């Protein structure tokens, strides 16, 4: 005890400027760490925001379009074969739409290929789709040529035309559409993974910001207390301002990172996921409409097309049922399936038009062949179109939700980069301003 009594006194006397320097240095360092944590958090969330908002997100939407355009191509082909020679102008209009879809598909495939540059599996899928579409064109052109040569009236074309079309539609449904569908799922995977990585990066960054921020405040407080005790000053104004600035940086940094994280979650859930699900539902509905014309067109496979229509109906709006008439009679507003997530007034509107479409379908299947074709061309097509229009509106609304959420995240990022580094640099400067006069007393 007696041996150790004197040396501490001497050391304290010598170490006042040293301690002051150490505390001030530590405070500046802690502020630098805080800045680094905020910037690192912003950079990592910024890159995921880019992936979801500007790269993979739009890509998913492009591939989801592919599926719908391709099933529409096949549906249009069935329609022109069914319509016969007295529907000349309408056939021509169908062929124009067909060419338009083919153009959109080419654009969609090119876009997907460009965006899949680091994913060879996905690239091979795009290549295989390009090759397959070429084959489809050949088979469809053959069926179309035979159809024109036969010169039949509206209704089922001759058997050899139907057989030729079967080859084309089999290629589309067994090889091409599944690949287009999987392409959408795969890009969906990329977005999901970016989102998950972002979520853990953001929570990590938030912890780091809070940690370094508390450390900085602790150091500043220690410095303040030390100055008060040592130099009998109640406040060092510069240090008070520095503390306020550090607190502000801590609070705004956390809040902005939070907001950015929320923007991403919002974009993912309300925008992206909904758009993806609804686009899939719309694409499958298009293919259901195609199944109706194929049902009328192909007497060999009537059963099969009725069954695929039922399968797809259950995917879009699931109701427990054993057969198509059973499904159509049990269809209620509490359906599940792809459209099951739609809520509120949107659900009521969607249900009304979807039920109208299904009721028209039930009616068509009870009519004799020729009357069925006339009904399909008139009322049923109208019912389908009003259902499709409601779906399209819903998708567009969610798309703008998605864009808005991404813009919100981008905006948060800009504020972050502008204000926080400046505030923290000022804080560091103020620490020096507060400490230097005291250090000078020891010169």
């Amino acid at each position, binding site marked *: 005890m007696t041996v150790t009594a004197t040396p501490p006194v001497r050391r304290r006397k010598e170490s006042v400027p040293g301690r002051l320097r150490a505390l001030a240095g530590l405070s500046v360092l802690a502020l630098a760490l805080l800045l680094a944590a905020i910037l690192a958090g912003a950079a990592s969330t910024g890159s995921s925001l880019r992936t979801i908002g500007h790269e993979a997100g739009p890509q998913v939407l492009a591939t989801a379009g592919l599926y719908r355009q391709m099933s529409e191509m096949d549906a249009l082909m069935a329609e022109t074969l069914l319509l016969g020679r007295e529907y000349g102008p309408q056939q021509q209009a169908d062929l124009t739409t067909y060419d338009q879809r083919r153009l959109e598909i080419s654009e969609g495939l090119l876009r997907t290929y460009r965006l899949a540059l680091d994913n060879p*599996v996905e690239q*091979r*899928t795009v290549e*295989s789709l390009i090759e397959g579409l070429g084959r489809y064109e050949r088979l469809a052109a053959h069926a179309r040529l035979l159809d024109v040569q036969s010169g039949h009236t509206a209704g089922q074309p001759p058997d050899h035309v139907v057989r030729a079309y079967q080859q084309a539609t*089999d290629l589309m449904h*067994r*090889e091409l*559409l*599944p*690949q287009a*569908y*999987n392409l959408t*799922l*795969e890009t*969906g*995977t990329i977005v*999901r993974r970016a989102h998950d990585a972002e979520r*853990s990066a953001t*929570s*990590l960054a938030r*912890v*780091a910001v*809070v*940690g*370094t921020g*508390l*450390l900085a405040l*602790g150091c500043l407080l220690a410095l303040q207390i030390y100055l008060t005790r040592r130099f009998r000053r109640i406040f060092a104004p510069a240090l008070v301002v520095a503390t306020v600035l550090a607190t502000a940086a801590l609070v705004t940094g956390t809040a902005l990172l939070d907001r950015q994280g929320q923007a991403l979650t919002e974009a993912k859930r309300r925008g992206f996921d909904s758009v993806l699900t609804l686009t899939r539902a719309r694409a499958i509905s298009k293919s259901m409409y195609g199944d109706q014309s194929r049902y009328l067109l192909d007497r060999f496979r009537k*059963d*099969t097309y009725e*069954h695929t229509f*039922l*399968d797809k109906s*259950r995917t879009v709006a*699931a109701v*427990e049922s*054993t*057969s198509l008439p*059973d499904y159509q009679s049990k269809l209620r507003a509490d359906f599940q399936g792809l459209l099951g997530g739609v809520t509120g007034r949107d659900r009521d509107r969607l249900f009304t038009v979807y039920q109208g479409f299904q009721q028209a379908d039930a009616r068509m299947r009870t009519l004799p062949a020729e009357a069925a074709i006339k009904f399909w061309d008139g009322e049923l097509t109208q019912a389908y179109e009003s259902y499709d229009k409601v779906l399209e509106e819903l998708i567009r609304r969610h798309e703008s939700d998605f864009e808005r959420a991404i813009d919100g995240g981008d905006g948060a990022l800009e504020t972050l980069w502008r204000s926080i580094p400046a505030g923290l640099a000022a804080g560091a400067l103020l620490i020096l301003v507060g400490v230097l006069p005291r250090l000078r007393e020891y010169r």
Partner: protein
Amino acid sequence: MRKLLICLILLLTACGTARPPSLMDDDEVAVVAIRSDVPLISFKGPDGSYDGFNIDVAEDLLSRLGKRIRWLEITAGDQLTVLTDGRADLVFAHMSVTPERKKVIDFAGPYHIDFQDIAVRPADKDAVHDVRDLAGRKICLVRGTNIAQRIVEERRVKAIPVEAPDYNVCLDMIKNGTIDAISTNSQILAGLLTKPGVDLHLVGATFNEQRTSIGVRKGDVDGCEELNRAITEMYQDGTAHMLLDKWFGRSGIDLSVVAVPQFEGCS
């Protein structure tokens, strides 16, 4: 210093957030549940090792994921519980996707699209061409399957279902004339036809798509997505075609179109 330590601890704990168990975060060994009683698809060879189409597919896919396999033999009744109680990572039991099953497990794939087909006695070869010709005939209804129901209710074909505990009993029943036809997945039928003493004709009436998928634990999105990627590669590099040809090339099943199936989706 203590504060710095607290910060570090906070940082470290933030890294280990809780997630459902996944095929991808286990070690190198994956537990794969299979059946051993389905000819051509998954069966026990004379030397006691497993063989068949499902076995080959499972080995190919898991080697693409860098995993080794530990087989777990199950019966048809266990194919869901083995996943829900965590005894297996995957189930390769020729399962098709149904809404009821999707409530308790998830599905990767399908890795193959099969169709329902019909087997009849050679004498009925000319009388039965498609599912409508089953009207008024007796068909085998194996307990626990929905195949007969799909013919009678979904297709509204007035066939007469006759109950049986399993397909071996169906084979006896068709032989002694109790029933007229057996209908199930064409691959399973092809397997039944290879059994000694069985003389049946495969009609080739492909109806009702059967989406043969891999059962994965509910919520294992990572594992499911990786399996889908592996399935895509298996089709792209020709392995799928080779395996189908190896097991079903001589069965009479139409293999003219071998294309990657439309996946179920993982979430």
